């Protein structure tokens, strides 16, 4: 272990460091590593923005990334969105029925989907499917010297590899979020109306009354932040991949875990800000 000194190596009269010293050293090291990683990611993101605004990426690199991020993610996002809508109906129905408000199910399902679950679900699927793949591909390129090969041929790796992936995640995650919202609404409607037998008109009326344009806007706005986080974190992890197959695997796992934690953290902050903004501007009455 780094920092340990063997008893025989200690100069005469010097005491072996105690457990508290080790504890402080370990925690101090973790804090320093954490701060260093945040700084590295900030510099990485800055370089990416500089390249994005100074030189247009090649059409070929953009289209292939748009296809991988958008088109190939669509089925899985739609499927999970549908299931989440139905699960919400299953979970909420019993509680609402106990207080005789099952006709209001449309309000809670659709509001939850559009405000929160749609964007977070789409981002989670994107982090799992696309983020890990980005880290693994770029990590493999790092390990097999393909990134150095890009540099030697005069192509900037951040411009060539990161900018197209960032743009693909940033521009297509709103579309994926809308798809997750839509399929969740369809799934919730199907289970509530067809399976549970809730009145069709009441379900739709409550949905229309309680889901606003601001809900949709805030969900999509949040998703744009999530897309940016996924792209930057995943590319960063790939670029800083350790050698070997294990290094690539760790980079892919770390990309997903880090993206997911950041998505939830940023989601909380954005929710607080968006709620504060909404109530400051419109100050609506709140009642069911």
């Amino acid at each position, binding site marked *: 272990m780094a920092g340990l000194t*063997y*008893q*025989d190596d200690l100069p005469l009269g010097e005491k072996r460091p105690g457990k508290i010293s080790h504890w402080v050293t370990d925690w101090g090291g973790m804090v320093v590593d954490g701060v260093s990683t945040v700084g590295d990611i900030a510099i990485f993101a800055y370089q990416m923005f500089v390249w994005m605004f100074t030189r247009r990426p090649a059409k070929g690199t953009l289209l292939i990334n748009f296809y991988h991020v958008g088109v190939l993610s669509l089925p899985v996002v739609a499927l999970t969105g549908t299931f989440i809508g139905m699960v919400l109906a299953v979970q909420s129905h019993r509680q609402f029925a106990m207080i005789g408000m099952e006709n209001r199910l449309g309000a809670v399902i659709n509001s939850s989907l559009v405000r929160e679950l749609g964007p977070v679900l789409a981002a989670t699927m994107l982090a799992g499917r696309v983020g890990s793949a980005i880290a693994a591909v770029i990590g493999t390129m790092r390990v097999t*010297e*393909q990134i*150095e*090969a890009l540099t*030697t*041929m005069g*192509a900037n790796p951040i411009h060539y590899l990161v900018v197209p992936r960032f743009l693909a995640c940033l521009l297509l995650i709103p579309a994926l979020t809308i798809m997750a919202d839509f399929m969740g609404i369809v799934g919730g409607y199907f289970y509530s109306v067809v399976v549970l037998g809730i009145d069709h008109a009441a379900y739709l009326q409550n949905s229309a009354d309680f889901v606003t344009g601001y809900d949709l806007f805030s969900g999509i706005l949040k998703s744009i932040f999530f897309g940016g986080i996924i792209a930057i974190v995943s590319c960063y992890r790939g670029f800083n991949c350790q050698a070997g197959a294990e290094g690539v695997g760790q980079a892919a796992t770390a990309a997903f875990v880090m993206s997911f934690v950041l998505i939830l953290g940023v989601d909380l902050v954005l929710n607080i800000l968006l709620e504060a903004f909404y109530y400051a501007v419109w100050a609506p009455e709140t009642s069911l």
Partner: protein
Amino acid sequence: MNPEKAAEIDFQSVPLDPDTLDDVSQAERPIVEVRGVTVRFESQTILKEIDLQIERGQTLAIIGESGCGKTVLMKTIIGLIAPSQGAVLFDGRDLGRISQQEMTRTRRRFGFVFQNAALFDSMNIFDNIAFPILQHEKASDSEIEGRVMEKLSEVGLPPEAAMKFPAELSGGMRKRVGLARALILQPELVVYDEPTTGLDPIMSDVINELILATRRNYPVTSVIVTHDMRTARKVANRVVMLYPRRRLEADQSQMLFDGSPSDLDHADDRRVRQFVRGEAGERINELLRETAAISQPAASQA
């Protein structure tokens, strides 16, 4: 350059500003000058105060055992690694002082053949070889196709290989594609990282012949990092041997040998002769002592 002589030169007095070098004509000026280069990774010193000049048209082989810093030196020469101290001048320009744009333009003059070819997995062979052209030139599709096919032919690959992907090729074919990609812009300096490692003797000789053919066909300077003494002897007209920094005294030069391949067998330094002959010598005992030194504290801790 003799390492002892190199050590005598006061590099502080040598101007690094390229403007002051205008009086030296381009043809006389070495294409690469490594001046007092030290490279450290965290606390580990890989290269210490390396001085090297590479003349135009020269084929230099850098030899030495694993971990001696050959590849680090090579990557420092082409600006992939920034030296911790010292400077690398390419055609009189300090690579550490030029702008990003100028560095990109300068890289057009380098060709790099990677150890494992480093072909882009997502592209077919045609696109891999055409990549440098697309990065640096505005050429028509037909012109690009003509040049790519010409290079494929030069490295002995059939036209059908162009549409294959790197994963479909053998190691020797990948190396030849890597060579074709490195040569597509007709660079002034071609750097080869272990060009024959992992290849059978016949394919190794094919690569050696391709390196010689490149030298015959183009006015190119070559730097070859290799363990393969057959390659060094056959291809190079100058050989430099590096030694791992950690096994040297503080005042010892890391460059144990700098001379022609024919002088290798008669080198004064015993370590050079042993390396050339592939003899372990006292290195076995050194390794055993190192292993014992590592395991002893671990045992005392247990």
